[in-house]
């Protein structure tokens, strides 16, 4: 009898759990159905990563106090947000606002899950590169908060003066007598187009040309132009069969280790590697990236910000929160404090630059930076770009210019 009782209780429990599971699935589906009717809910949902959640809590509390609208912060892994947003917004279960990077825009707009945000007259209060980055086909799709770009990190004990050109940098690096004249993290197979891009632009070879609305034009692939070919030749000359400055066996971790150990005066990297160098007690300066091809060496800028769901039922409240709270100097400065990335709002940017020479250094390089293309066609570029650069640096695969032209043709074919 006892056994039977227990087993029946177990059935009950299992059945209840399974029913709850079903009900859970169904309950989730319910939100999209009736949230349109519950207009007085007065709550906006924001997807945010752990770092930023703490800062936004204060802004959210202030917003709730002033407007009566609750702000629900949902923590997500930053890397997962884009795909989950694309998948969940159409089901009605997505958030009203999510944190993200500007280069997601192409995918988000193509999938119709983001809505334009009207910054109104406050658009002029942001750094130009941030607004450019968050614009897509002439519309601004979010509120930017931080700009991130690479710069040339210099160990001032080894080399006291900023280099004026790439050749000057190598000469200074060799004169310093360290093991490496210059460090940049590369991958054995895929090199690193992101870090090598400023050298490429210094030869006058951007990836895409710009269209009439100021955005990148996928129909105008520039990477294979004469400048690109010159860059390919230069890459080979710096690679394994040439000067050997660029070494694909030194990945990002090894490059950081060597720089921190004082084995090189120069390290081409972003703000994320500064803490390690500072902890090691190095005296640092951030210099503009020296030009290899004569023209300005423009790195990519990545701009982070918050975007608005196209299916949001709380557009007014969400827009108000975005423009007037996330776009405020307090929040932007607070986000800078936790993330260390240069703020996008000019007033917060100036405050940050005034207080920290390293930030000022990256900010100065960032003024020359170009937004990383956010058009979906960029995906086709990445998959050929790095492998070709790797092959050229390693001296494998033959003539660098031929390899470069082949790459441009492959990208063109993939885009079409």
């Amino acid at each position, binding site marked *: *009898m006892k056994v*039977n*009782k227990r*087993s*029946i*209780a177990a*059935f*009950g429990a299992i*059945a*209840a759990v*399974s*029913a*709850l599971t*079903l*009900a859970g*699935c*169904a309950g989730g*589906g*319910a939100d999209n*159905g*009736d949230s349109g009717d519950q*207009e*007085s809910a*007065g709550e906006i949902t924001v997807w945010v990563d752990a770092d930023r959640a703490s800062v936004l809590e204060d802004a959210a509390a202030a917003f709730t106090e002033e*407007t*009566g609208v609750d702000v629900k912060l949902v923590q997500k892994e930053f890397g997962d947000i884009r795909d989950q947003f*694309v*998948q969940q917004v*159409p089901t009605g279960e997505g958030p009203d606002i999510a944190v993200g990077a500007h280069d997601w825009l192409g*995918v988000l707009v*193509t*999938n*119709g*899950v983001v809505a334009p945000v*009207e910054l*109104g007259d406050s658009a002029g209060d942001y750094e130009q590169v941030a607004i450019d980055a968050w614009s897509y*086909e002439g519309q601004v799709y979010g509120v930017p908060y931080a700009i991130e770009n690479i710069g040339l990190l210099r160990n001032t004990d080894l080399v006291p003066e900023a280099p004026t050109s790439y050749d000057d940098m190598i000469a200074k690096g060799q004169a310093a007598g360290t093991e490496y004249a210059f460090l940049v993290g590369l991958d*054995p*197979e895929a090199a690193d187009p992101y870090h090598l891009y400023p050298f490429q632009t210094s030869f006058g070879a951007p990836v895409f040309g710009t269209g009439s609305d100021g955005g990148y034009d996928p129909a105008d692939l520039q990477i294979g132009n004469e400048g690109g070919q010159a860059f390919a030749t230069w890459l080979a000359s710096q690679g394994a069969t040439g000067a050997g400055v660029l070494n694909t*066996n*030194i990945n990002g971790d090894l490059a950081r280790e060597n720089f921190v150990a004082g084995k090189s005066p120069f390290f081409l990297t972003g703000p994320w590697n500064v803490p390690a160098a500072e902890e090691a007690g190095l005296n640092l300066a951030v210099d503009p990236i020296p030009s290899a091809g004569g023209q300005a060496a423009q790195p990519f800028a990545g701009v982070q910000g918050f975007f608005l769901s*196209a*299916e949001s*039922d709380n*557009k*007014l*409240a969400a*827009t*108000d929160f975005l*423009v*007037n709270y996330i776009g405020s100097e307090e929040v932007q400065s607070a986000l800078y404090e936790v993330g260390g990335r240069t703020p996008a709002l000019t007033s917060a940017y100036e405050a940050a630059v005034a207080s920290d020479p390293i930030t000022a250094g990256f900010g100065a390089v960032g003024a020359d930076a170009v937004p990383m293309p956010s058009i979906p066609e960029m*995906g*086709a570029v990445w*998959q*050929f770009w790095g*492998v*070709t650069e790797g092959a050229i640096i390693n001296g494998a*695969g033959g003539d660098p210019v031929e390899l470069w032209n*082949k790459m441009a043709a492959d990208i063109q074919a*993939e885009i079409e």
Partner: protein
Amino acid sequence: MTTPTIDRETAAETIKSKRSRRAAKIAEAAGAGWKLLLFKVVALGIIDALALYAALVLFQSEQLIPAILLLAITGIANWVYFSRGNLPAKYLIPGLIFLLVFQIFVAGYTAYIAFTNYGTGHNSSKESAVNALMLSAQERVPDSPAYDVTIVEQLGEFSFLVTDPDGEIELGGVERPLQPVDNAEIEDGKAVSVPGYNTLRFADVVANQNVIAEMAVPLSDDPNDGALRTPDGSRAYVYLSNLEYDEAAGTMTDTRTGTVYTDIGTGAFTAPNGAELRPGWQINVGFDNFVRAFTEESIRAPFLAVLVWTFVFAFLSVFTCFALGLFLAIVFNDPRMKSKKYYRVIMILPYAFPGFLSALVWAGMMNQEFGFLNVVLFGGADIPWLTNEWLAKFSIILVNLWLGFPYMFLICTGALQSIPDDVQEAARVDGASAWQIFRNIKLPLLFVAVAPLLIASFAYNFNNFSLIYMLTGGGPRDVAADVNVGATDILITMVYKVAFVGSTADYGLASAFSIIIFLLVATISVIAFRRTKALEELN
């Protein structure tokens, strides 16, 4: 074998009827107690209430099929637990429900996606696509000023009370272009109320934000002047739309160029010249994805090479791991071996690390210039472990051997220990050599036990995505090749690249590929299991 067959059947029947009688007795005893009945009623009542609520919610959101399914399942569950018989079903139903939710639904959904164009740009329903297109088509007229706006209400209808930058005060609604008013009350240079209308507080604005966000108040009778819209309820801007949606005809018209985009059944509004408006929406495309898997140049070209390597990789992985595992198991099973325990612990260590982490560590150790292998073991040699096509393949097998042999070692040890010693002794008495005992007695007995595991291991390695992805990323790639597929890519990593890494995600194609891979693995497994059955009968 002396007993006639008929007798055996009767005997079996007697046992069976005895059993079912006993079961029925137990069930009756269980059902008889009023406490249990009460418990049953309450438990099922809760479940039914939840299911009913869920079904109502589903009906409300117009998801008819899931709602009907839910009700049907609940009905069946009720019938099973309240009827007197159906004892097996009482045990099976919870498991069946889990199977349905977590296995069959997932597999069925994958199959469903394989027949759609779900992917970047075809992400949602036509309705959301139209909504998104209309949203992004609303563009603020360049350099147009910002208007202060107060939302006012009269007889349930909202209006904008607008203070333009010059201080003019106007009132307008969706159907009524802006008209000047002169008796508005002004605060800080902004009109805040007007007689005859209620001014909305921010909370009221938020409560009605759907309606207000949709409002477009025409500036004048001429629609080309644009309309005022407010994104935040306190400021309004002049917007013009680039697109016009004709719901009856199902067409989108670009107001700047006059191009008409029509729904031609491809899941996107398409212009006569073939240009598509993005986003589009999800539609059923039949067998298109399967056809593409075999005909699209970028997929077909590397398909054969990848398929061959997938088989080679899966076979060699199983073979090498099994060979080493078996060898070690035999060695450690020998009674003459000392301190076996400690060796065994060391043997199993690689099994205890997460596989993808080990793969990453190995990738570091195989660095051509700074890796542990070249620097320490090969005295500074320059061996391109991961960047040479053949060495990379070798490295993959090697790392997988390191990762996989402990498992084979464990199961072989278990299987070996389950082989009775007297069988071997008998063979020895008959004068068989050690090799003969192994070859003719131990190995066949071992195979009976481990063959299913070998097949499972083959199926696992056939789809061993994490190892390939973490160790070589499918590379090295031939730069001369037109497609993004490397020397060590197996089917699943190729699918990943084709479906996700290119310019856009294509879930439909990826699902189709998953089904193709499933069919391959299933076919191989079925054949292999048939063979092992034959093996069992041999013994």
